[in-house]
C-alpha cells in the first residue's frame, strides 16, 4: 500500500512539470501586457516601457521561465505584479471562501445526487425516475451563471430570504457563513448533482440486475438495506470515480460562481488576474488547482480499496 502511494506521488512530478511548462508558455504567448494595464490609459509608451523594465517583463521569455521555475522549486509562487503581495499569501487569503464553497457544494451534491440516483434506480421507468432523469438533463445543460442569476432573482431579490452576494467568514458565525453559501452551492452543485445522479442510477441498475441481488431479495432482505448495504456499496467505485473527476467540473464552476455571487475566493482571484495579465497569480493558481486535481484523483484511486478489497491485492 505504501509503495503504491509512493509510486503515485512520484508520478505527480512529471504531470506538474508539463502543467508548469504549458501554463507559462500559454500565458506569455497570449496577447496582453500587465505593464500597459498598470500604467493606465493616459500613459505613454515610454511610461509603459519603464514599468515593464521594473517588473522584469522586458527579459527574454526563457529567462523569465528559468527564474519562475527556480522560485517554484523553492516553494515560492512569486509576487503579484499589481499588489506586490506574495502569490501564496493571496491564495491563502482567498482559500477559505473557495474551500467553503467546494465543501458545501460537494456535500450537497453527493447527498442529493446519490439519493436521487438510488431512488430513480429503485423505481426505474416510473414517473419519479423520469423526473430525476429530466432534472439531470436540465441540471447538466443549464449554465451555472443562468442558475445563479435565477436563484438570486427568486430568493434574494423577490423573497429576500438570502443575500445576493458576498461571503461571511466562518469565524463570523456559522449562520451568516451558511446563508452566504446556500445559493452559490445550489448554483454550482446543479451540474454536479446531475452528473452523479445519472451515474448512480446507471450503476445501481447494473448492480440490481446481478445474481447476488436476486439472491438477497429471495432471502427476504428488506428493500432499504438491500439498496444501501448491498447494491450501493457495490456501485460505489464508479460513483466515487465520477465524484473525483467532477472536481475539474467543480473548479471550472467555482470560477464562474464566485464571479456571479461576488465571493472573494481563488476563482475570483484568477479571473481578475487574467483580465490584468498578472502572470504570477495566474500561474500560481493554476499550479495549485492542478495539484489539487491530481491529489483528489490519487485519493479517489486509494479509496477504491475501501469499497473493493480485490483492488488491494
Amino acid at each position, binding site marked *: 500500500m505504501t509503495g503504491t502511494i509512493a509510486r503515485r506521488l512520484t508520478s505527480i512530478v512529471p504531470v506538474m512539470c508539463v502543467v508548469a511548462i504549458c501554463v507559462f508558455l500559454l500565458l506569455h504567448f497570449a496577447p496582453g501586457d500587465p505593464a500597459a494595464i498598470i500604467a493606465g490609459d493616459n500613459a505613454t509608451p515610454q511610461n509603459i516601457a519603464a514599468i515593464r523594465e521594473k517588473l522584469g517583463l522586458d527579459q527574454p521569455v526563457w529567462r523569465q521561465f528559468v527564474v519562475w521555475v527556480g522560485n517554484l522549486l523553492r516553494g515560492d509562487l512569486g509576487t503579484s505584479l499589481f499588489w506586490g503581495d506574495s502569490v501564496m499569501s493571496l491564495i491563502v487569503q482567498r482559500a477559505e471562501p473557495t474551500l467553503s464553497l467546494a465543501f458545501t457544494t460537494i456535500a450537497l451534491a453527493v447527498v442529493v445526487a446519490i439519493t436521487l440516483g438510488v431512488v430513480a434506480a429503485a423505481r426505474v421507468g416510473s414517473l419519479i425516475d423520469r423526473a430525476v432523469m429530466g432534472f439531470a438533463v436540465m441540471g447538466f445543460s443549464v449554465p451555472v451563471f443562468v442558475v445563479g442569476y435565477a436563484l438570486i432573482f427568486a430568493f*434574494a431579490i423577490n423573497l429576500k430570504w438570502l443575500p445576493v452576494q458576498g461571503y461571511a467568514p466562518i469565524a463570523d458565525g456559522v449562520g451568516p457563513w451558511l446563508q452566504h453559501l446556500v445559493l452559490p452551492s445550489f448554483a454550482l452543485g446543479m451540474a454536479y448533482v446531475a452528473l452523479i445522479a445519472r451515474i448512480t442510477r446507471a450503476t445501481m441498475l447494473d448492480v440490481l440486475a446481478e445474481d447476488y441481488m436476486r439472491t438477497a431479495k429471495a432471502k427476504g432482505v428488506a428493500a432499504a438495506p438491500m439498496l444501501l448495504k448491498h447494491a450501493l456499496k457495490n456501485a460505489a467505485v464508479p460513483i466515487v470515480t465520477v465524484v473525483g473527476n467532477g472536481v475539474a467540473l467543480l473548479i471550472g464552476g467555482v470560477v464562474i460562481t464566485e464571479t456571479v455571487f461576488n465571493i472573494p475566493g481563488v476563482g475570483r482571484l484568477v479571473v481578475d488576474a487574467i483580465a490584468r495579465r498578472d502572470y504570477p497569480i495566474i500561474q500560481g493558481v493554476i499550479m495549485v488547482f492542478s495539484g489539487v486535481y491530481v491529489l483528489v484523483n490519487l485519493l479517489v484511486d486509494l479509496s477504491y480499496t475501501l469499497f473493493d478489497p480485490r483492488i488491494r491485492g
Partner: protein
Amino acid sequence: MKATRRTVMGGSLAIAGLASAPGILRAQARPPAARTVRAVMHGDIPTYDPIWTTANMSAYHGGMVYDMLLGADARGDEPRPQMVRRWGISDDKLTYTFELRDGLRFSDNTEVTSADVVPSIRRWMVRSGSGQLLAQHTRDISAKDAKTFSVVLKEPFSLLLDIFSSTNTPVLFIMRKREAETDPMQKIDQVVGSGPYILNQDETKVGSQYVYDKNPHYVPRSEPASGTAGGKVVKVDRTVYVNMPDSQTAVAALQAGEIDFYEIPPIDLLDQLQSDPAITIENLFDLGLVGHVGLNWLHPPFNNIKCRQAVLHIMNQEDMLRPTFVSPKWYKTCGSYFTCGSAMENDANTGWFKSGPNIPLAKQLLAEGGYDGKPIVMLQATNIPYMSNAATVMAEQLRGAGMKVDLQPMDWAGVVARRVSQAPSDQGGWDIFFTSGAGPSYSDPYTDVSMATNGTKGWFGWPSDEKNEQLRAAWVAAETLEQRKAIAAQIQDNAWNIVPHLHFGQWQQPTAHRKNVTGWLHVPDLIPFWNVEKT
C-alpha cells in the same frame, strides 16, 4: 475517559466557539451598517500609488487618503485653496509663494510641512504630463519654512494654479517626505496620507474590498464642500470599495440594499434601476465621456492625410453610439475637437460633421491618398460593450466606403498591449483602436496626452504636426480665457484638417445609489466620499 456523543458534541461546539471569537470581536469593532457606505466602483485598484500610475481607480484611492494643495470648485472655473491657506504671486509673475494652513496632519499624526510638499511636487512632476509641462517652466521649488514653499518660474506660466488643482491623473496628492522621496519609477511602499480617510489595511483584502475609515486627525476647511474645494467633512465612519466585476450582481446587490453606490450601472439596466423607488440615478461627471478613435499615423493608409480625412467623412457617430447607449438622453454627437459643453467647444472646421457622412467624397479622398485595398486592422475590445459595438459599426461604415477591414476581437488587456506596437499592422501592429476619456481631459489641449502631436514620443497613434504643437504652446502661454478660446478654435481648425484622431461622440455614465445616501459631489475624474451622508 470514554468519549460519548455528548462530550464530542460539547467539544465541537467549544472549538467552534473559540474559532469564532476573533471574528466576532472583529465584527463588533466594525461600525454599524448605517455608518458605512459600501460602493462598487468601475474596477480594482491597480496600485496604491496614485502618482506612479494614471489609472483612475488609483486616483480615487488617492482622493480618499491624500489631500491636494488646491481644489477646484464644482464649476471648475477657478482654483481654490485646500491644504494651502493662501498664496501670492510676485509682480513679475515668476514666483508663487504658498502657505500651508494650520491643522494639517498625516494619519500617523505627524505634521504636514513644506518638507513633505516639495518632494511630493517634484516626484509628481516626473510622472505627470502636466507636471512635466510645469517642470519645463520651473527654475526651482523650495521650502522657505515649515509652512511656506515657493515655485520659481523661468517665465510666466499662468496654468500653474490650474494644474495644481486639476483632477486629471496623476493628481498632485501630497505625501509624507518619506514616500515622496521614492524613486518616481518605483511604487511607494506605505499608505500614509493627510486626507479625509485612512486605508484600513487590516480589513482590506486586495482585489476584493478596500476599507477606508474616517481619519480622526483630519481637520476640514470651514467652507462648504464644492468639487475638491471646501471642507472635506466625512459624515460616515467607513467607506468600503467592494470589487464586484459582474454588473448584473452589482445591480441586484444595490436593489437588495447590500451596497449603497454603483459607479457604472450598465445603460441597459438603468430603466430597471429607475423603477426602483429606493434608488436614484445621478450623473456625477457633468461633461461625461468622449469616445476616441485612434488612427495609426506611422503606416499606410493612415500615414496619409487624405486617408485620415476620408474617415471623417465616413464615420457616423449616431450609429456608433446608439447600440450601446440606446437613448439620446444618455449620448450626443459632437463635432468639436474639444468636449462639447466645455469652455473650449467651438465650431471651427466642422463642415464634415454638419453635412454628415459623404461616401463619394470619402472614396475620392481614399483614391487620392493611394489606398490600395490593404486590410485595416481594427482592435475590438469585446469585453467593453461601447468599444466593441463602436468597432463593429465602424467596420461596416468603412467597408461601405470600399475599405477592407480586419476586425480583430480581443479583451481590453489585449488592446492595451497591442496598441503599444509601432510595427505595421500585418506585423503585429494595428491601424485603428477605440477608447474613451473623461470630458474635462478633452477640453484641455496641453494636459491631455492624446492631443499632443509629438510623433513617436507621444501617445498611441503617434501623430506628428508642428503647427499643432505651436498652437498648444500658445494656448499654454495665453493669459485669459478668451485668448485660450480663440487659440482652441485654431487648434480645432488644424486638427480636423490633419485628423490626429477622431471622436465618436459623447455620453453620460450615470451612477446609481440608494436614496438614503446623499451629498454626492460632482468632480471630474474623482468620486469623493466626503460630504456623503447615510440616513
